[in-house]
């Protein structure tokens, strides 16, 4: 089943999401990228109702890009997350709400801080040191409670992520096979292998 994790460390945020695109009990695709790079220092992992996810992610991506084109600087992570949250909260009480859960991770170039926001389809937003969505969250959150360190180096952060991935692979009945992992820090976003 769909699972995504994210955690902050010293000057970076790691965002990871599984790569399966499933329909009913069938895996349709095993290399789907579910983490969008929505601005130079912002990542967004999305999961939820197929169809809604990509539609909403592209809607967000384009609006954030439009702001950047108009103002010559991108939205800061907190502002972007607030805008995304509002979009979901408005959508919730509309005729056809989006069912999309998000992890928005970014590096704030004004304050030089990594930022991570946990957002669900209702528009619930919270600033967290680490977060997860999907069935994997039931395993990952307790591991992260134990091993997360906000001062950890990138290597240590990736090792903690690896623990989460391995635990889900070991204990979850319908565990996803592969994950895509992206990091955002002062140099921008990049993909890493675990």
């Amino acid at each position, binding site marked *: 089943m769909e699972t995504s994790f994210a955690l902050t460390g010293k000057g970076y945020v790691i965002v990871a999401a599984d790569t399966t695109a499933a329909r009913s009990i069938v895996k349709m695709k095993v290399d789907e990228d579910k983490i969008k790079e929505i601005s130079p220092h912002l990542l967004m992992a999305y999961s939820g109702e197929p169809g809604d996810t990509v539609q909403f992610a592209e809607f967000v991506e384009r609006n954030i890009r439009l702001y950047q084109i108009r103002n010559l600087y991108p939205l800061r992570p907190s502002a972007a997350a607030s805008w995304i949250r509002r979009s979901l909260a408005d959508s919730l009480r509309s005729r056809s709400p989006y069912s999309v859960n998000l992890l928005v991770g970014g590096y704030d170039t004004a304050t030089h801080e990594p930022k991570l926001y946990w957002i669900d389809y209702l528009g*619930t937003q919270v*600033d*967290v040191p680490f977060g997860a969505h999907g069935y994997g969250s039931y395993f990952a959150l307790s591991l992260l409670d134990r091993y997360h360190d906000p001062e950890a180096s990138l290597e240590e952060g990736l090792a903690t992520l690896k623990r989460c991935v391995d635990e889900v692979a070991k204990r979850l009945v319908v565990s996803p096979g592969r994950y895509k992992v992206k990091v955002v820090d002062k140099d921008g976003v990049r993909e890493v292998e675990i």
Partner: protein
Amino acid sequence: MSIMEYNGGSVIAMVGKDCVAIASDLRLGNQALSISSNFQKVFPVTDRIYVGLPGLGTDVTTLRERFRYRINMYTIKEEREIEPETFAHLVSSTLYEHRFGPYFIEPVIAGLSKTPSGGVKPLIAAADLIGCLNFAKDFVVAGTASTKLLGVAEGLWEPDLEPEDLFETISQTLLNSVDRDAFSGWGAVVHVITKDSIISRTLKGRMD
């Protein structure tokens, strides 16, 4: 499953002698799973008013933002800060606007209003999710631990408590009540509003 219990969280407010206190837990959950232990649901409105918004997480944020908008416009146009009574009715009418598709929030308001003689008068109020106001002389409760809060407050509260004693009373009431509630807890935040200062403290509870 009730929408009001989906994210969990509780708020309480109490009256003291020329002071009021408001306190909340810090949990945000998804039913039984805790997501955050730092989710604020009590917000400053002016230097003398706080509002607590327990209920559905998304509406906590939405209402907080809407109230901030209204209060900022009020302050900048009126060139003075809003009075607690006025704010209570702003809360009430905002909620009733959505009578048939409500925000799932039961607000708690704590503030000091000015008296003509230059003193202050404590005011606390609670509302249901469609804005029915309840002004109380002693204490008001809301949230998933409201039943427990009511019982403990009934036992601990007494009239005319000084700020430090009020702080102790509200803190003990909240911490002991949320221990009996699976959906509230993970630490607490307490604000005591007095004539010339605000005492804000973050408390650790049973962090499990």
